[in-house]
């Protein structure tokens, strides 16, 4: 950028080009980020926490956006400042670095020679052209192909290795901006939602906690079944939902009965469904019975939801009045699941009695014509799915990959340069490296050692 441009603009530019600003911003970001790890963040702020704050504190926290700190105006401002700082620094420095790569200094004059910390100078017999050939062959074999220039009868040889690694730093810095862009694409064009699906039912919208509005998926998802399994220790082993994607009510081939577990989501049309939580619906549990007649005949299996009338083998009806997973709360001397049922057979008064899963022989003693055994209840569950659509995510991964590559370029590669000057039986060699001077000194000393033996 131009340097003669009014005092204010110039000092603003210098301010944004300064590495001290970078360090200050990074330290500011590091320290302020702590706030959001200590204060609960939206949308997970418990009401008790709000109540525990004094009104002054609450006022302060609210106005500084501490409950949604990472999206507060001042935190975003810090990120913008960092971005401007980054771009300004790069705009200022990149042309210089590019010049080193694109137009390397190929002549080692006295000034350059003095500025190099590694030089060596010795006599070597032979005329200039022969020496030049010898040096060129040597550099090509031991280091890298040289470029030869002649100035007033003096030959200059220049060879270099990995000049582009100087761009590593800029790749890192560009990658940060790419990640920011990816994050913005995600926040403008993506969704994050949540949905509970009861087993056997389907949904076509999900709830967005940020806007508190439903998002229309454009298709529906049905939960066929949800199950949890446990290790012997009682720790959960697997949460599994079986999902089917429906277009216009029809199952989509390839997206039917797909198991979704934690760490293995389902993706369809850019939306991804992640297993996140579950719970009992608290209604609609089915109770299962086996019924046989005292007079003999095949036992019959019956499933009944609470309140539902189901036909019995003798032509009558039964109804589950109440079913509980553990009867202990009502009858302390009994255990296991139990169901209170009512049977109505033609011409008889309704009968109410309880059957127990853990005591299968008990109902026989009741003396009725039909003998019930209770096979248990199945509670209906809902599965809680996290739903996300993020078109920016690939941009973010591109940025991350570039960042890792850039950091490795900047740290582990070095731009190594060797100059050789040949004049009247005199050879001068000089070298420099952009990184790890101690390591390069060894390389340089080895080169000089070999040169002397030529």
């Amino acid at each position: 950028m131009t340097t003669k441009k009014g005092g204010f603009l110039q000092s603003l530019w210098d301010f944004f080009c300064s590495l001290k600003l970078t360090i200050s911003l990074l330290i500011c970001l590091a320290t302020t980020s702590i706030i959001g790890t200590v204060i609960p963040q939206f949308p997970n702020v418990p009401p008790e926490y709000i109540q525990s704050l004094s009104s002054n504190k609450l006022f302060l926290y609210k106005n500084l956006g501490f409950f949604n700190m990472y999206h507060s105006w001042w935190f975003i401002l810090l990120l913008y400042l960092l971005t401007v700082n980054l771009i300004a620094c790069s705009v200022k420095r990149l042309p210089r670095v590019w010049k080193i790569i694109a137009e390397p200094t190929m002549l080692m004059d006295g000034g350059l020679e003095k500025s190099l910390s590694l030089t060596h100078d010795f006599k070597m017999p032979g005329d200039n052209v022969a020496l030049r050939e010898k040096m060129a062959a040597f550099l090509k074999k031991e280091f890298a192909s040289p470029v030869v220039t002649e100035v007033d009868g003096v030959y200059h040889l220049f060879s270099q290795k990995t000049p582009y690694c100087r761009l590593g730093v800029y790749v890192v810095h560009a990658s940060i901006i790419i990640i920011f862009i990816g994050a913005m694409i995600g926040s403008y064009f993506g969704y994050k939602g949540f949905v509970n699906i009861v087993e056997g039912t389907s949904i076509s919208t999900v709830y967005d906690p940020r806007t508190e509005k439903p998002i229309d998926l454009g298709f529906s998802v049905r939960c066929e079944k949800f199950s949890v399994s446990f290790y012997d220790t009682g720790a959960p082993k697997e949460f599994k939902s079986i999902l089917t994607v429906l277009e216009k009510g029809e199952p989509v081939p390839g997206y039917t009965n797909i198991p979704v577990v934690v760490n293995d989501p389902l993706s369809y049309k850019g939306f991804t469904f992640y297993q996140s939580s579950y719970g009992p619906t608290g209604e609609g549990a089915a109770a299962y019975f086996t019924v046989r007649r005292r007079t003999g005949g095949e036992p019959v299996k019956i499933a009944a939801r609470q309140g539902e009338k189901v036909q019995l083998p003798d032509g009558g009806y039964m109804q589950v009045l109440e079913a509980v997973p553990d009867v202990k709360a009502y009858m302390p001397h009994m255990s296991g699941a139990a169901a209170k049922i009512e049977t109505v057979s033609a011409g008889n008064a309704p009968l109410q009695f309880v059957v127990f899963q853990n005591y299968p022989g008990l109902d026989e003693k009741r003396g009725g014509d039909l003998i019930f055994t209770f096979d248990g209840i199945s509670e209906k569950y809902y599965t809680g799915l996290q739903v996300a659509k993020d078109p920016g995510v690939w941009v973010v991964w591109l940025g991350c990959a570039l960042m890792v590559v850039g950091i490795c370029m900047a740290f582990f590669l070095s731009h190594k340069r060797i100059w050789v000057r040949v004049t009247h039986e005199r050879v001068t060699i000089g070298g420099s490296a952009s990184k790890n001077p101690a390591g390069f000194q060894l390389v340089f000393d080895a080169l000089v050692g070999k040169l002397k033996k030529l």
Partner: protein
Amino acid sequence: MISSSMLFNITTLSYLVSMIIFFAFLATKNRVVGLFASCAAYFGFIVQTTAIILRWKESYALGHGHAPLSNLYESVVFFSWTIILIYGLIELKYKYRIIGAFVVPFAFLGMSWAQLRLDSGIEPLVPALQSNWLLYHVITCFLGYAAFAVACGISIMYMIKAKHEESAGNSPAGGILASFPPCKVLDDLNYRAIMIGFPLLTLGIVTGAAWANYAWGTYWSWDPKETWSLIVWFVYAAFLHARITRGWVGKRAAILSIVGFAATIFCYLGVNLFLSGLHSYGR
């Protein structure tokens, strides 16, 4: 039958012995003593490597079959192992054995804490951790943390030495300090250790984000653990820029390196102990 827990005890003991010999090395400056100190650490490292492999096998024998990186105990053990690994690499490459005196204690502290206070049972993996990403994420993070531990040890040496040089002018340091490498070398070694740690931490954060995206659909959710790893990353980024800024070289860079490691430890342990979030280690 040799069990992994027996070998872990031998490891802890080796690191203790190594630490004591290292302190003797500081006092005597005798090269043979230094060699013994390193050898004790390497012996412990080999035993520990065997023990980790054995524990992995034991997990298969129990029918769980997962890498020993799944709970606080296993991660602390692995952390100690990576600290000695990174120390070993730096020692072999740069031949400054003495930094062991400031690094091996971290590994010893970790091992003894794990052996004495943490639950060493081999548990099956909870659903959230059943993924190959666990391996990539944990290994890169801990290698990074270990490099920062080494850098912190070196920075402490730098602070001690720089303080002495300030008060004693330019007269050559006597006593224990004479065995320290010169300030310039310590500054350089600090940078080199962070040059190992920073890319690894970056990879650790990236693999963590990739895993979160794969498992939960968000690569970044400002969960306290994520945020603290970013804080650590900011501190070391500040360090890297401090080193190329006049007036920030040397002492301030060393302070940033120590602060960075303190933040690392908080990120690793403090977040689980004091804050709540998605990462389930240690709870």
